[in-house]
C-alpha cells in the first residue's frame, strides 16, 4: 500500500533527529514552532522532546555559575510554556530540571559543609528548624489561592536571591517572621519553630509537624551557613553540568520506564473476569491492561472518543499502537490486547451510561494531573467518570508522575483546548458550518471527587494525596516559571 509508506511529517522523531545536529537556539525555536503547530502533542511526546531539548540546553551551557544555569533553563522554559500553555507537561519537565539543578547545587554544598563537622552539626540543627516552615509554605502554595503563591514565600525568596547575589543573604533568616502572614493556618507549628530558631529544642518531636522527612525538600532548605558556602561555591571544582545532565538522563529513563512501572501494579487492581471500561488510545493504559492480561482474563470495553482520537483508538485496538508513534517507537513489537486473548468491545461514547451498570472498573488515561487531584483528560472523560460515580464504579486514573503538575486549576476553561470543528462537521457542509456554531472540545476536566485512585509509577495514591507527590517533585520556588 502506498499509504503504508512513512511520511516524514515533522514530529517528535524528526525533532529528536534534528536535535543531534542543530545548535541549541534553533532547536528551541524548532520545538516552539512544533508545539505551536501541534505537531508534537500529547503528554508523552512533549515530555520526551522537552527533556531532550533541555539536555542539549544544559550541555551547551557555558560557564559554571549555577545561578546563570537556572536562569537559562528558566528562560527557555518560559518560552516553551508560553508557546503551548496547555501542554502542561513541558512546564513540568522544566520545573523538574530546575529542581535538579538546585538539588545538585545543594548536595555539593552539603558535602562542603560536612567537611567541617562543627559547622555541619550546626547547620543540621538549623536545618531542622527551617524545614518546618518550608513544609508549611509548600502547603500554602497549593491552597486554592494559587496566586498567593506568586508572592515569594520565604524560602523562594532566599533561594532566588541566593542564586543571584548570594553573598549578602547571610543576614536574612530572621525574615521568617513574615511567613506567618502568608500561612496563618500553620501558625501553631510556626511558633514552635520560631522558638526553635533561638532556643534549639533538643527534640524536634514537640512540634506538630512530622520531622523525619529527608526528602529533597529537607535538603532544600538553604541555611545561612549553606548560603555562605554558596558564595565561594562556584570556585569549587565539581562538575555542575555533568551532574545535571546525568540527572536529566535519569529523567529520560523515568519517562521511558514509567509505563512499565505503572503496568507493574496492574495485577493488584484487575481481577479475573472483570469488565473494564476505558477510553481513547493511551499507551499507559494499554500497557497496564496488557500486563494484567498476561495473567488474567477479563473484558475490556473501549469507548472510542469520537471525533478526537477515534482513529488512534481504532488503531490501538487493531494493531496495539498509535499511528503517530509509528516509526519512532523502539518496541515496535506491540500487540493488541486481543492478541492476548482479551475480549475487547468497542463502543461509541454515547453508550457509556448504558454499559456502566455492568462495568466493574473504569480506567482512565490522562493528559495532565493537577495538584488538587483533578485531571485533564480526553473529552468524554468527565461523563465517563460521572457515570461511574453514579453507578458506584471505581475510577482508576493511570498516569506517569511526569504528568503530575503543580498547576492548580483556578480557571478550568484555561486548560481546555478546543480542536478542529471540521472533524465534527466537515467543512464541505458549508451551509451547516456557516450557520451553526460547531464545538469540538478536546479535553475534559475531571474533578478530584470523581476519581477513586491514581496509579503512577510510584504506586497507587488517593487523589487527596497528590499534592504531597507534587511537593516531592517540584521545588516551590519553581512553580511560577
Amino acid at each position, binding site marked *: 500500500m502506498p499509504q503504508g509508506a512513512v511520511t516524514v511529517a515533522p514530529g517528535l522523531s524528526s525533532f529528536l533527529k534534528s536535535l543531534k545536529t542543530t545548535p541549541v537556539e534553533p532547536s528551541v525555536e524548532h520545538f516552539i514552532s512544533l508545539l505551536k503547530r501541534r505537531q508534537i502533542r500529547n503528554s508523552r511526546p512533549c515530555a520526551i522532546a522537552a527533556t531532550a531539548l533541555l539536555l542539549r540546553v544544559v550541555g551547551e551551557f557555558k560557564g559554571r555559575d549555577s545561578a546563570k544555569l537556572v536562569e537559562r533553563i528558566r528562560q527557555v522554559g518560559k518560552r516553551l510554556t508560553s508557546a503551548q500553555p496547555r501542554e502542561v507537561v513541558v512546564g513540568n519537565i522544566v520545573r523538574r530540571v530546575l529542581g535538579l539543578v538546585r538539588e545538585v547545587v545543594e548536595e555539593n554544598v552539603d558535602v562542603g559543609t560536612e567537611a567541617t563537622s562543627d559547622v555541619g552539626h550546626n547547620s543540621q540543627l538549623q536545618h531542622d528548624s527551617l524545614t518546618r516552615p518550608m513544609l508549611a509554605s509548600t502547603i500554602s502554595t497549593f491552597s486554592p489561592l494559587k496566586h498567593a503563591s506568586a508572592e515569594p514565600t520565604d524560602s523562594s525568596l532566599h533561594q532566588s536571591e541566593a542564586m543571584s547575589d548570594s553573598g549578602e543573604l547571610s543576614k536574612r533568616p530572621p525574615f521568617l517572621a513574615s511567613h506567618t502572614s502568608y500561612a496563618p493556618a500553620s501558625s501553631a507549628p510556626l511558633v514552635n519553630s520560631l522558638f526553635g530558631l533561638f532556643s534549639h529544642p533538643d527534640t524536634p518531636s514537640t512540634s506538630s509537624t512530622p520531622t523525619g522527612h529527608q526528602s529533597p525538600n529537607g535538603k532544600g532548605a538553604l541555611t545561612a551557613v549553606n548560603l555562605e558556602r554558596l558564595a565561594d561555591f562556584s570556585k569549587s571544582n565539581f562538575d555542575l553540568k555533568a551532574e545535571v545532565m546525568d540527572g536529566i538522563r535519569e529523567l529520560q529513563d523515568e519517562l521511558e520506564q514509567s509505563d512499565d512501572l505503572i503496568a507493574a501494579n496492574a495485577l493488584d487492581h484487575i481481577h479475573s473476569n472483570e469488565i473494564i471500561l476505558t477510553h481513547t488510545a493511551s499507551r499507559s493504559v494499554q500497557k497496564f491492561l496488557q500486563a494484567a492480561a498476561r495473567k488474567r482474563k477479563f473484558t475490556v470495553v473501549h469507548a472510542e472518543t469520537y471525533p478526537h482520537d477515534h482513529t488512534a483508538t481504532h488503531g490501538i485496538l487493531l494493531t*496495539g499502537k498509535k499511528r503517530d508513534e509509528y516509526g519512532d517507537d523502539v518496541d515496535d513489537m506491540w500487540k493488541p490486547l486481543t492478541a492476548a486473548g482479551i475480549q475487547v468491545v*468497542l463502543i461509541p*461514547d454515547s453508550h457509556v451510561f448504558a454499559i456502566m451498570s455492568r462495568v466493574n472498573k473504569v480506567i482512565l488515561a490522562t493528559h495532565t494531573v493537577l495538584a488538587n487531584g483533578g485531571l485533564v483528560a480526553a473529552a468524554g472523560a468527565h461523563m465517563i467518570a460521572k457515570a461511574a460515580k453514579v453507578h458506584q464504579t471505581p475510577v482508576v486514573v493511570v498516569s506517569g508522575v511526569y504528568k503530575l503538575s503543580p498547576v492548580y486549576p483556578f480557571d478550568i476553561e484555561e486548560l481546555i483546548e478546543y480542536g478542529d470543528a471540521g472533524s465534527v462537521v466537515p467543512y464541505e457542509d458549508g451551509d451547516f458550518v456557516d450557520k451553526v456554531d460547531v464545538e469540538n472540545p478536546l479535553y475534559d476536566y475531571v474533578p478530584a471527587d470523581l476519581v477513586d485512585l491514581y496509579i503512577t509509577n510510584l504506586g497507587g495514591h488517593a487523589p487527596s494525596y497528590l499534592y504531597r507527590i507534587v511537593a516531592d517533585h517540584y521545588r516551590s520556588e519553581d512553580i511560577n516559571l
Partner: protein
Amino acid sequence: MSHPPSGGAAQPPAAPTPDSASNPPSQSTGDAKNVNAPAAEGAPKLSAAELKKQKQAEKQARRAQAKASGGPPNQQKSPPPKDGQKPTKESKQGPKEDKSKALPVRGRPSQTNVPAPKDIKKEPKKEPKQIGLFFGHLYSQLRQHSMVGATKEVHPAVLALGLQYSSYVVCGSTARMVAMLLAFKAVIESYQTPVGTSLARHLTSHHLSPQIDYLRSCRPLSISMGNAIRWLKDVIIKIDPSTPEAEAKRDLLSEIDTFILQRITAADHLICDNAIDKIRPGDVILTYASSSVVEKLLLRAHKEGTPFSVIIVDSKPLFEGKRLARNLAQHGIKVKYALVTGAAHAVKDATKVLLGAHAMMSNGRLYSRVGTALISMLASSSSIPVIVLCESVKFTERVALDSIVGNEVAPSSELLSESERQALLPFKSCLPKSQSSSKGRDDGKGEKEEGEGEVIGWFEEEKNLQMLQVLYDVTPAEYINMVITEYGSLPPSSVPVVHRLSTNI
C-alpha cells in the same frame, strides 16, 4: 501403537508456527487461495456418512488426547479409526491441505493460529456466549436489509417502508408509527375479504400480521408502533361483522386518520402549548439528537419571538441532531452543535434540557436514544431542569431497570463511517502478523474491494474484538424533573397513571 496419537497431538502445535512464521505475506495470499480452493471443493464431496465418520474421528482424537495425560492404556483404542480416516481425507483434499489441516483435527478451524492448542479447543465453545458482551440475548434476530424472504402477502407499501426502516430513512419513534399507520391504510384500502371469512377475523390475523412480521424483521417495532398496532387490532375486531366491507374499510381508514390526528398531531400541539412557557427569554436549551416534538416546540417559541439559543448534542453514527440543527438554524435560531464527548462542556452553558422520548416506562424511566441518559445525568448533577416531551401514545406498561435487558442492537458495521475507514487504512502495515497471515484468504478478497470494505473485515476477523452498537438507553427517573404530555405536565412517577387513563378511554 501408542506412538501415533501422541505424535498427532504434538503435531498441531508445531505445525501452525512454521506456517505463520515462514510464509512471507506476499506468498500467503496466493498460497492461502490455493489452500482454500481445494478445501471448498473437498468439503461438498464428503458424503453425509463420511462427515459423520470424520466428526467421530475428531471426537475420538480429542478424547484420546485428553486421556493421553491421564493414562496410556486407553490410547490404544483411538488410533485405528483415525489412521483409517486420515488417508481418505488426504487423498481427496490434496497434499496442500495438510498444513491447514493441522488445526481442524481439534475442531473448527480458528482464525488465529498463534494460541496454544488448548485455547483452540475452548474457543469455539465460548464464541456464541461472548457475542455482544452481555447483549447476546438481543442478537437473536438479525436485521433484514432486503425484500428477500418476504411473504407474498406483504403489501408493496409495507415493503418500501420496511426498507426505509432498516436504512434509518424513516427514523424516530413518532415518524415510524405514523408511517406504519399510513402504510396500513394502503394495505386496508387494497384489502379484499376472502370468501367465507369476515373482515374482523381475517384482516388482523391473516393479512395484517405478515405485514407486521415483515416490518419487525426490518427493525424491531418501537413501543409506539406496538401501541398503535394493539389499538388497530382492537378497532378491527370490534367492527360489526354485519357491516358491508366497503363501509367497514372506510370506517377503518377514517379511524386511523383520527388516531394520527388525536394522538400525534393534536397531542404535539398540546404539548407545545404546555411547554411553551417553559422557554423563557434568554434561555439556553440543550437537546440531544433529534425529536420531532422538541423541534416543533423550539420553532414555535422562536416564532412567538422568545429570544433563546439552542445547544444540540449529537452522537455517532446516526447524527440525527445535524438535521435538527440545520433546520433550526435556517429559521434563524442560534444553534450550537457538539458531539456527546463534549457534553460536559455543553451542559455547563445550558439552562434547560429538553428531551424527546422513544418511550416512557411505567417505572418512570425514559427509554430514548442512546446517550440521553448521559445528558440527563450531567444536567441533573449541575441542577439544570430536565424536561421530557412525550406523547402519551409512547407510554408503555413495560418497566426497565437498565439498558441491557431490553434494547435494540444495530449492526456494528454502521459504527465506522467511510471517512473513519479511510483514516484507518494506513494502519494496514502495522496489523499484527498473526492476523494478516491467518486472514490470507480474505486478503485476496480485500485487494479487490480495496479500502473501506477491507477495514470492516479487519474488525470482523479479529475474534476478540467486536464493536457494539445499541440504539437506546434507559434514563433513571430521578434525573427527570418533568414529563410534558398532552394531558399536562407530570412527574415521571405519574407515567403509569396516565398510561392507564389514556388506554382506558
